[in-house]
C-alpha cells in the first residue's frame, strides 16, 4: 500500500468518526428525554415515598417544593440539562449525594461481572458454534446445536438458580450471594463474582453459538472456499484462516450487542445474587422514583453501549481488509 492511499483512508476514518460522534448526540438525547418524561408522567411521588406513611400532605408538599418537584416540566428539564452539561447529573433524592459520585462504584461492579460474562459467552459460544458448524450433521454437531437451543430456551434466572444449588449450596465452591470487594482479597472476591458472571455468560453464550454456527455455515458455501479447496489448501488452514476470519464479522457485531444485553441482564442476576451493581441500583431507583439517579444511569449506560458499538464498528476494518469505513460503497 502506498502513502498516497493511506492519506485518503485516514481522512475517511476521521470523517467516519466525526459522523458517528455527531450521531451520538440524538442517540443519547432521545432515550434521555423519554426517560425524563416517562418518570414524571408515571404515578409515584418520591417525596411521599421518602417521608412514608406518617407524613401529612403538607409535609409531602413542602418536601416536593424543596426538591423542586413542583416546578413546571420545562423548568425541571432545563435544570436536568444543566446538570448533564456540568457533568454533575443532579443529586440522588434518596442517597443525598451527586449522581456522578454514586454511579462509579456500582458501574465498576457491573462492568467487572459483565467483562467476565462476555469472555464466558464468547469462549463458550464460539466454541459450541464452531463445533456445531464444522461437525454439522454429525453427533457432536447435533449435541452442540441442542445445547445452544437449550441455552436460548432456559431463562437466565433458572440458570442462576441451578448454579447456586449446585456450586454454592451443594459443592460450596462459590458464594450463594453477596459481594466481596477486591480489597477483602482476590479469592474471596472471585468466589463472589463467579456465579453471577457465569449466569450471565452461559445465558448469552447460546446466542453467540447460534450466530457463530450460522456465520460459518454461510461462509463455507462461498465460492472462495471452493476455490481454496480446489487449490489443495489444507481444510484445517481453510477453516482457521479463511472461513473464521470472514465469519468473525457477524460474531463481532453480536459481541457489541451482547454488551447491551449483559447490562440489561445484570439487573436480574444482580438481584438474585445480591450484587450491588448498576442493574440493581437502577431497579431500586425506579422503585423509589429517584429521578436524577435513573436519568444518570440511563445516560451512563447509553453512552457506554454506544461507545462499545462504535469501537466494534471500527474494528471491522482491522479484521477484514475488505471493509473500509466511511467510504461510500461503489
Amino acid at each position, binding site marked *: 500500500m502506498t502513502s498516497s492511499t493511506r492519506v485518503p483512508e485516514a481522512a475517511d476514518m476521521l470523517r467516519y468518526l466525526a459522523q458517528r460522534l455527531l450521531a451520538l448526540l440524538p442517540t443519547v438525547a432521545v432515550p434521555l428525554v423519554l426517560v425524563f418524561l416517562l418518570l414524571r408522567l408515571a404515578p409515584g411521588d418520591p417525596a411521599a415515598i421518602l417521608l412514608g406513611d406518617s407524613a401529612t400532605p403538607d409535609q409531602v408538599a413542602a418536601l416536593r417544593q*424543596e426538591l423542586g418537584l413542583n416546578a413546571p416540566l420545562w423548568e425541571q428539564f432545563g435544570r436536568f440539562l444543566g446538570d448533564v452539561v456540568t457533568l454533575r447529573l443532579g443529586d440522588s433524592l434518596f442517597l443525598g449525594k451527586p449522581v456522578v459520585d454514586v454511579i462509579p462504584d456500582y458501574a465498576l461492579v457491573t462492568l467487572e461481572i459483565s467483562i467476565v460474562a462476555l469472555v464466558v459467552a464468547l469462549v463458550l459460544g464460539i466454541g459450541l458454534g464452531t463445533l456445531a458448524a464444522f461437525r454439522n450433521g454429525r453427533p457432536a454437531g447435533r449435541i452442540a446445536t441442542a445445547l445452544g437451543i437449550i441455552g436460548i430456551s432456559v431463562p437466565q434466572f433458572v440458570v442462576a438458580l441451578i448454579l447456586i*444449588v449446585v456450586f454454592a449450596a451443594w459443592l460450596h465452591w462459590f458464594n450463594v450471594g453477596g459481594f466481596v470487594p477486591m480489597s477483602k482479597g482476590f479469592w474471596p472476591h472471585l468466589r463472589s463474582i463467579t456465579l453471577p458472571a457465569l449466569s450471565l455468560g452461559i445465558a448469552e453464550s447460546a446466542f453467540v453459538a447460534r450466530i457463530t454456527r450460522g456465520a460459518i455455515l454461510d461462509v463455507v458455501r462461498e465460492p472462495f472456499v471452493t476455490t481454496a479447496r480446489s487449490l489443495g489448501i489444507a481444510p484445517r488452514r481453510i477453516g482457521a484462516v479463511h472461513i473464521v476470519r470472514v465469519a468473525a464479522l457477524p460474531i463481532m457485531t453480536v459481541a457489541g450487542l451482547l454488551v447491551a444485553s449483559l447490562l440489561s441482564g445484570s439487573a436480574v442476576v444482580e438481584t438474585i*445474587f445480591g450484587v450491588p451493581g448498576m442493574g440493581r441500583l437502577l431497579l431500586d431507583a425506579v*422503585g423509589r422514583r429517584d429521578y436524577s439517579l435513573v436519568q444518570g444511569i440511563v445516560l451512563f449506560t447509553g453512552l457506554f453501549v454506544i461507545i462499545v458499538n462504535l469501537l466494534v464498528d471500527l474494528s471491522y476494518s482491522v479484521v477484514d481488509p475488505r471493509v473500509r469505513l466511511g467510504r461510500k460503497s461503489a
Partner: protein
Amino acid sequence: MRHDVRPNRRARRLIPLVALAAASALVLSGCGADDTSTSGGISSGGEPQTGGTLTVALPATPSIIDPFATSLQADWVIARQVCEPLFDVSTSFEVGPVLAKDLVDNGGGSYTLSLRDGVTFQDGEPFTSADVIASLNRYFLTPGNGSILKSLTTSIEAVDDTTLTITLNTPSPLLPTLLTTAYMMPASVVKDRPITDPVSDLVCTGPYKLTSYAADGDVVLDRWDGYQKLDTPGDGGLGAKNAYADQIVFTPMPEASTRRQATEAGQVDIGGSLSYDDYDSVSSGGVAQAVLLSPTSGSTVVFNKAQGIMSNVAMRQAFLAALNMDDIMLAAFGNPEFYSVDGSIIPEVNSTWATDAGAENYNKPDLDRVKKLLDEAGYTGEPIRWLTTKEDPSWYGPSLPAQQQLKEAGITIDLQVIDRASVIQLRTDPMAFDLFSSGIPTYADPVLLPYLQQTFPGTWVSPDRDALLSTLSTESDPAARKVTWEQLQTLVYEDLPFLKFGTSRPLLITANRVHTEHPDELAGWYYNTWLDQQ
C-alpha cells in the same frame, strides 16, 4: 461440610454432572431441598458466648442509615445497633428509659429530663444536654413521632449538662413514647442539619460502631468497647445490650431463595424475610431452622371516605359483613401458623393495648346482612376500584380471596395491581380509588397509628375520633387511657375507615449456631444474639 467417605476420582468427576442434573430437575419442578417439616424455633443455647461475626442477609440494606432522613423503619436497622434514643421499646412494646435516667412530671406540661451519667459517644465526646437539644430539633423535622412531638412542644432548655426541661403546650403521657425514635447524635453533627442532608457516618452511643457502609451494599459494625450498658435484663431496645458478636455484617440479598440457600450453605447466619413457601422444607435437623416471630404486621384495606361509593358507611359495613377473615388469611399466607386472625387493631403482642372492643362483627360473614347494607347504600353493582401491589405480599395476598368473597356477596371489585410507588401516590387522590391495600406495624401507643389521623389518605373526618384522640393524648391515667382506646376502636368498627384482615408473623431462617433469649429481637435488634464458638 466434612464427608467421612470419599468417592473415587472418577466418581468425584461425576458429582457436578449428577448434581447439575438433579438441581435442574428440582428447580424446574419447583421443589425445595427436602420435605422435612419443621415447626421452627430458636433456643437460647445455654450460656451466651462472645466472639465471631454475625452475618445477617436482608432483602435490602438501607440506602440511608440516618434514621432522621428516612421514615422506613426497615432502614433503621443500622441505627438500632449503633445509636440509642432517650426511651425505647421492648419486644412486647413496653416503653422504658435508655439514655434518659428519669423523666419527672412537674405539672402544667413541664417535665424534667435527666440523662444517664458517664455516657459518651463513640468518638469519645460526652453525651450532654446540648446533644439532646440538637438531636430533638432535627427530630422535629421528621414526619410521624417527631412531627407530633414538635406540635406538642413549647420549649426545650438545658438546665445543666445532664438535665433538661421540656415544656409541652399541654400535659401528655405520650412524651416517653414519642421519644422512642429520637436517636441521639452529637450536636456537632446534627445541629441545624436538614433531614435532606443525611448523615452517612453515624457516631452514636450504642453497643456497635459503624465500620463501613455502602449504600445498598454491605454494612459492617464492630463492637464498641466503650459502651455503657444498663444492668437490667435486655429485651429489644431496653435493658442490657450485650454485644456478643465481635462484628455484625449486614449483606443485601433481594431474593428470598438466595437468603435461604446462603443460610443453609453457612455463608450467612440469619436470613431475614424468608418466603412462607420455604417454611416446610427448611429442616430443623440440618444446619438451619425456620423461625416464626410474633404476629406484628397487620394486613389492611383503607377506604375512600371523601368521595365515591365507599364514602357510604353502609357500603363499608357490607364489606365487613361479607368477609371471612379465616379463609382470606389462609389463602393469603397458606398456613395458620403464619398469622393470627384477631380483631384487635393493635396486635396482641402489645398486650397493653390489644382489645376486642367493638369487634363483634369482625370475621362474622353474614350474606343477609350484606344484602341489606348494599340496599341501604344504593349499590347497583358498579365496579369498585381497589389499588394493590404485588411488591408487598401482606398487601396483595388478602386482595384476591377477598375479591372472590365480595363477588359472591354481590360486590364487584376492579382490582388494580400496580407498583408500590404508584399506590402511594394514587391513594392521595380521592378521584383515583375506592380503597387501597396497606399494612400497619405494631405501635407502642395507638395515638401513633397513622390511620387515625384525618390527614392519612382516605380522609377520615370524625369529631368523635378527634375527641377520643385528644383524650388519649392528654389523659395520664393508664386505665382511663385503655378505656378511651377501647371506645376509639369501637368507633373504628362502627365507622370503618379501614378494615383489618389479620396479623402476619415474620419468618426468618437462622443457622443452628445462632442463639438468643428473645427470638422477637431478630425482628431488628441483633446485639443480644450470640454464636456457638467452636
